[in-house]
């Protein structure tokens, strides 16, 4: 992986994490926003400016790709690169969590 991308996305912001996490299945921006609200019990919300900007950046960086456009909404999905970065981040968070509760982490 491009070290530059690693620097940008590992570790990543909560917004970026939930967008990638949600894009494991195809979804459009507003739909991602709703998904994230639901899984975080309304504690994380992503506003349209932030959503649009982050999606555009991730598409440019090759983490997500445009699948189709439906009723003027762009539907995106994770690319293999996006998935790789998501897994790195998930492992980092798992390690963080396991260490924080005093257990040992074995990768």
């Amino acid at each position: 992986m491009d070290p530059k991308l690693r620097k940008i996305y590992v570790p990543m912001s909560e917004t970026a994490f939930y967008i990638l996490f949600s894009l494991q299945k195809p979804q459009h921006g507003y739909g991602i926003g709703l998904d994230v609200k639901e899984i975080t019990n309304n504690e994380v919300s992503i506003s349209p400016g932030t959503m649009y900007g982050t999606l555009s950046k991730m598409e440019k960086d090759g983490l997500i790709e445009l699948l189709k456009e439906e009723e003027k909404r762009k539907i995106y999905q994770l690319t293999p690169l996006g998935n790789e970065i998501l897994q790195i981040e998930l492992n980092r968070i798992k390690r963080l969590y396991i260490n924080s509760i005093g257990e040992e982490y074995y990768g």
Partner: protein
Amino acid sequence: MAKTKTKMKIFTIADYEKEEKWLESKHAEGWKLTKVVFPVFYVFEQTTPEKIIYKLEFNEEEVTEDYLKMYQDYGWEFFGSHVGWNYFRKLESEIMDESDKEIFSDNESKVEMVDKVFKSRMLPLLIVFFVAFLPQMSQLDRNIFGSSDIIFAIIYLILFVLYVSLLVYCGIKLIKMKRDLENK
């Protein structure tokens, strides 16, 4: 046809939050913004007084259909662009929680917008200052006494002071906004 009125008002590139508040107070008085005419004219149309949130987004990229659709999905009405600023509004009664009031949900994206304003508005002004205003100034210095250009020189000096004040005001304000956001 509804009654309209036009107001002249100057907001600098660093005063967009003030402009939002002003538009909100106008709408609460029953005047809804219909368009902004270059450079400083605001056209209002009479309407029922309502509590509305106004938001300005600096975005010089082309306003595309999918961009507008996303804002619309989030409940924002787009009603025009003016020199790089996109104007949005939303009924306050449609707001469920604090996050619905914002078009940017994290500080990073707010800082990014301040940076964009700085890069595409402040930098050109600074460049004009150094390549046009300053060299001209040294020219003046030589001719100012006993020259018939004295009126020109005075006008020039007034413009110079205005220009510098505007640069300093916007520069300091944008930097302060950025610092406040980063320290939040």
